[in-house]
């Protein structure tokens, strides 16, 4: 189970707009093991969606991967031909998108859109694929699947459409599923259902999952490992427990404080003030320094390296440098977050 399925190393992606080069990802490295579910968390513009599109090689003009490597099953994805990539897309790596309302083609039936994938990758006959599509629709919990397969997307509700999207993604039993904000556009109750479905399918089908979201609550439920991104960089990476109970990056701490906790009625939600950095002229130091309470002179000038906090837990913050002077408030906050979270 410890076999590495996907290894992303020093990935850099830019958008070449008429204003200049927007460096959306500026050196991102992580890996996904077989059967593992990891979460990528960050606010909009942090580079999380661009990361997933880079892996899928679905970046649209003017986006372009400018450096790094993506190795999937010992194969360098950035070097293979478009044709080879097409046989991976939808087959070995599948993707679910944010808005189920717009992600299905309105003029084809839902069944047709599942069949398309099956026929392309599994070389099934029309009848076989049709039967399989009904099976998959049943698996993702669509009632009366044989009839529903002949419906058009607009005849489905939002939650049903996301189930259909999942059915399309899972149709060829991919090794890796990338879900980009799969629940953001849905009602809270439907969200829970979809997450539950994803969790059960993840276990049942033994596939790896990358769940991309801005919602820490969503990843807590599904993922075992969490990556926190900000300004095109990974700020902190660790196990679910590391991130929730032992966060070491001020940004992660800020994120945790900005989400409501059900067990502590009196606690105020503390927003992270300020706005994300302008990636057209990314700061030379830490991208978060301008919004960071503990910012030091070095934070502005020099990008911090990763500090290994624990095994599998790394943080990009100068505060962890051995020479850094202790910051009482920071230490206290850590404890605070830890103890609060610990009570959960």
């Amino acid at each position: 189970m410890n076999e590495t399925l996907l290894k992303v190393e020093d990935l850099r992606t830019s958008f070449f707009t008429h204003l200049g080069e927007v460096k959306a990802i500026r050196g991102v490295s992580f890996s996904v093991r077989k059967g593992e579910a990891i979460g990528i968390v960050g606010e909009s513009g942090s580079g999380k969606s661009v990361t997933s599109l880079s892996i899928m090689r679905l970046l649209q003009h003017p986006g372009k991967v400018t450096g790094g490597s993506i190795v999937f099953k010992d194969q360098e994805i950035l070097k293979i031909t478009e044709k080879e990539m097409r046989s991976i897309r939808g087959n070995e790596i599948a993707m679910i998108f944010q808005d189920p309302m717009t992600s299905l083609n309105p003029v084809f039936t839902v069944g047709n859109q599942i069949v398309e994938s099956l026929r392309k990758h599994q070389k099934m006959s029309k009848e076989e694929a049709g039967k399989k599509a009904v099976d998959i629709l049943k698996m993702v919990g669509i009632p009366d699947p044989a009839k529903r397969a002949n419906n058009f997307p607009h005849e489905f509700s939002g939650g049903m459409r996301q189930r259909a999207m999942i059915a399309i993604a899972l149709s060829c039993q991919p090794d890796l599923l990338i879900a980009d904000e799969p629940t953001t556009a849905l009602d809270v109750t439907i969200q829970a259902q979809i997450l539950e479905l994803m969790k059960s399918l993840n276990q049942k089908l033994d596939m790896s999952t990358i769940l991309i979201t801005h919602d820490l609550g969503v990843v807590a439920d599904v993922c075992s490992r969490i990556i926190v991104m900000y300004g095109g960089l990974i700020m902190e990476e660790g196990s679910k427990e590391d991130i929730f109970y032992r966060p070491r990056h001020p940004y992660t701490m800020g994120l945790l404080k900005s989400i409501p906790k059900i067990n502590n009625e009196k606690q105020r939600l503390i927003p992270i003030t300020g706005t994300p950095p302008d990636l057209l002229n990314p700061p030379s130091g830490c991208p978060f320094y301008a919004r960071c309470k503990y910012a030091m002179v070095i934070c502005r000038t020099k990008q911090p390296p990763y500090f290994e906090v624990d095994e599998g837990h790394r943080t990009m913050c100068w505060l962890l440098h051995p020479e850094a002077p202790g910051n009482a408030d920071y230490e206290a906050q850590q404890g605070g977050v830890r103890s609060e979270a610990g009570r959960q």
Partner: protein
Amino acid sequence: MGRYIFKRVVSAIVTIWFIMTLTFVLMMNIPGDPFTEDKVLSPEIKQAVYAKYGLDKPVFEQYITYMTNYMTGDFGVSFKKVGLTTKEIILSGFPYSLKIGAWASLFIIVGGVAMGVAAALRQNRLTDRGVMILSTLGATIPSFVLASVFLYVFSKQLGWVPSFGVGTWKHYIGPILCISAFNLAFLARLTRTSVLEVLQQDYIRTARAKGLSEFTVVGKHVLRNALIPVITYIGPMIATILTGSFVIEKVFGIPGIGQLFTSSILNRDYTLIMGITVFFAVFLVVLVLIVDIIYVLIDPRIKYD
């Protein structure tokens, strides 16, 4: 589906009724009558002539006669072309207009869609720039200017095509090209915009994420969606082709229905004006109806209510 078509047919009939009534009201209000230009007629003759054409009856009675006659396909006789019925005159001119219109429509639909798709797929590159420049020119140069320039260059200077009339297939090149220009330009732009918009849609990203080839993505997922607005344009487009032909038929000397219409107006040939207007309108409404029905077959989102 059947209900939808029924509703559309009913609304088409209402539109035709509205058009016929509007035409009747307008014709009733034209100052003077077809005989005012003739030599002064003696009161008796005038009365006899009026009686012959039913012009002495009360307006409402004339309206009823007009409606029932049209219902039975009787468009009346021409005031000015003695001995000919309006229907005969229309049927003599229509084949020329139809021939030009049909070829032009084919040219526009095939050419416009191809140009638009090509431009959208190569956005901001040479093909796109070329198509955009052509379509901007096509959309801004009036057809009569284009037709005159065509005649001067290809007929006078180069002598490649004859200048006037309908003898050979060469006579039709100019009219077809000049009638097509505007709509070709418009359709190319419309298709380009539509394809570009569809290319931005999430479901195209989904299709790509399935690993489909670019050919399938464009040929199946993009085109099917992008052509929906294009199809709605085609019905009314045939209208512009037929009405645009007034000018083209005049410049190229084609005895088509457009030419008949302009001359009938200058001659104040009431029955002919009325006949052609109603003919045009019915033709159009039927075309639009057909397009509407095709439309629901293509776009499942249309509710049949």
